[in-house]
């Protein structure tokens, strides 16, 4: 029992931002809201914070119905994607602001701001104005303000999205440490699957205002319950192709087929959708069972340690991701290997079929 949404709906004008949503989030560790833009992450965060009221439904927090409780009374903290600080105040005053509102004594405020600033490496900047700081330091200030009070619920809305790559990695490594032993619940919205995986905890996969899957982060990644969860939780996008099962063999097309493996034997004859992650479609033959296909290369991206190729087969675009440099020329026919042990099967409606 921690944060519970009961049939929450949020409509703004004629648009529905959140469709009838019910979920019970874990009190421990990170709860990650994973979804692309317009998936409803920010709407959900605003509902959880109490900045917006749901159109219908109830929100319960630690056993209490907080649906109509004002945000000021909820004891929550929040960090936005944009670097939001009070520009007319110094970094110290920014961090101290929630404590001042709470009416703590000067000495307590000094002490708590001092220790949180130390933790976030902001001590030398305390007297400066937030606008004079770098993006990373501005976001650290916002984080410090969120952490300085003993909130029950901390909401982070893509806090790293506006930072450059290096700062993002640095802060991402620090984040879990900041929240341990605080006795607070953390909700973390992100659009990046890597971020979700590195933070762990539990993940709510969102798609167009609906929950497509909720569970342990690594389980949601490994075992998507439906195609949409698989799509949300994949970068580069997961390959989804139609296949059919006939007489113990799985047919990708007229030329490519393979005998069903041990984990695929349970499939009845019929049409399916098969999903396979880009890194299981490689130019080099992987260990274990694989089949090879030939496709015409459309786009290649090299990033030093890995190569991504988009290729076309039967009017279907595939994406391959592999370690090392595999420079295929655009327009060439190239051979790729599908690791068939890592294929996931879904019925035509998009629901996962497991044994």
């Amino acid at each position, binding site marked *: 029992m921690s944060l519970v949404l009961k049939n929450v709906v949020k409509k703004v004008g004629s648009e529905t931002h959140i469709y009838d949503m019910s979920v019970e989030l874990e009190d421990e560790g990170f709860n990650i809201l994973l979804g692309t833009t317009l998936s409803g992450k920010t709407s959900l965060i605003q509902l959880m914070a109490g900045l917006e009221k749901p159109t219908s439904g109830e929100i319960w927090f630690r056993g209490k119905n907080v649906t109509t409780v004002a945000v*000021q009374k909820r004891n929550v903290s929040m960090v936005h994607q944009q670097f939001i600080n009070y520009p007319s105040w110094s970094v110290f005053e920014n961090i101290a602001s929630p404590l001042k509102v709470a009416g703590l004594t000067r000495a307590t405020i000094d002490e708590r701001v001092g220790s949180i600033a130390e933790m976030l490496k902001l001590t030398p900047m305390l007297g400066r104005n937030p606008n004079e700081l770098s993006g990373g330091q501005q976001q650290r200030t916002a984080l410090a303000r969120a952490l300085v009070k003993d909130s029950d619920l901390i909401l982070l809305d893509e806090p790293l999205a506006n930072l450059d790559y290096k700062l993002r990695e640095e802060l991402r490594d620090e984040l879990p440490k900041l929240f341990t032993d605080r006795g607070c619940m953390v909700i973390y919205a992100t659009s990046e699957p890597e971020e979700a995986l590195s933070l762990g905890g539990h993940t709510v996969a969102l798609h167009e205002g609906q929950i497509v899957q909720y569970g342990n982060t690594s389980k949601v990644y490994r075992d998507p319950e439906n195609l949409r969860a698989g799509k949300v939780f994949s970068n580069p996008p997961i390959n989804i192709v139609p296949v059919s099962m006939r007489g113990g063999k799985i047919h990708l097309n007229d030329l490519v087929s393979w005998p069903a493996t041990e984990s695929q034997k349970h499939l009845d004859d019929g049409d399916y959708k098969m999903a396979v992650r880009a890194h299981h479609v490689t130019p080099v033959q992987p260990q274990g069972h694989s089949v090879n296909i030939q496709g015409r290369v459309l786009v290649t991206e090299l990033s030093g340690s890995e190569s991504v190729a988009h290729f076309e087969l039967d009017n279907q675009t595939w994406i391959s991701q592999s370690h090392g440099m595999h420079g295929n020329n655009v327009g060439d026919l190239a051979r790729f290997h599908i690791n068939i042990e890592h294929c996931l099967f879904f019925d035509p409606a998009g629901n996962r079929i497991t044994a």
Partner: protein
Amino acid sequence: MRKYKWLVPTLYILFLMLPIYWLLNMSFKTTNEILGGFTLWPQEFTLVNYITIFSDPTWYIGYVNSITYVVINTVISVSVALPAAYAFSRYNFLGDKHLFFWLLTNRMAPPAVFALPFFQLYSAVNLFDTHIAVALAHGLFNIPLAVWILEGFMSGIPKELDETAYVDGYSFPRFFIKIFIPTIAAGIGVAAFFCFMFSWVELLLAKTLTSVAAKPIAAIMTRTASTSGYELGLLAAAGALTIIPGAIVIYFVRNHIAKGFALGRV
């Protein structure tokens, strides 16, 4: 070519400054000298015009009156416009866009249109010839202007700032006064400046709505021209002094004005 690149700015400044110079020049001359012939600078330098203005109550009270209603107007305009601009920048409500545009159309009607109804209305409620009457009348064009300017500045502040403050525990009034107003201080300065200027230079309504007790300096200047002959030196001195408040205000907001223009709101 390069040798003459000082030429254009010099000419520009020369043309800009010429009328002001001429006004100052006249203000230090005697009326006889002004009427007597063409002189580039005062032949008989005199401060008597300024002394008259600062010693004669019928003169200096004009400045006091003008400043009084201009300040009242600026305070009213900005304090009324702040919540209005906040609503326009943060909320969607029925007809908000039309209402916002309609504010601007208020500036399209010449003040002369309102002179007669205002005269009648203010007389009827016993506000004729008071400072507050002129201040309220000038609100007709200054409040829409202030709303328009402030909305631009407020829309430049992300609404996440408001949310952060609420999450921190600020109530709306406390957030608005302690955080939001300091954040848009530059915008308030620019809005106040324009309210001040437009109220300061407006003559028609100010003249129509006053007779003795709240008569603005500009009205006193026109009176002098018509009754006691041509006291040109005195008029020039009064004119020179009339420029000063605007110059002072412009000095304080000079760094923010460009931002107001950049927002396309002025």
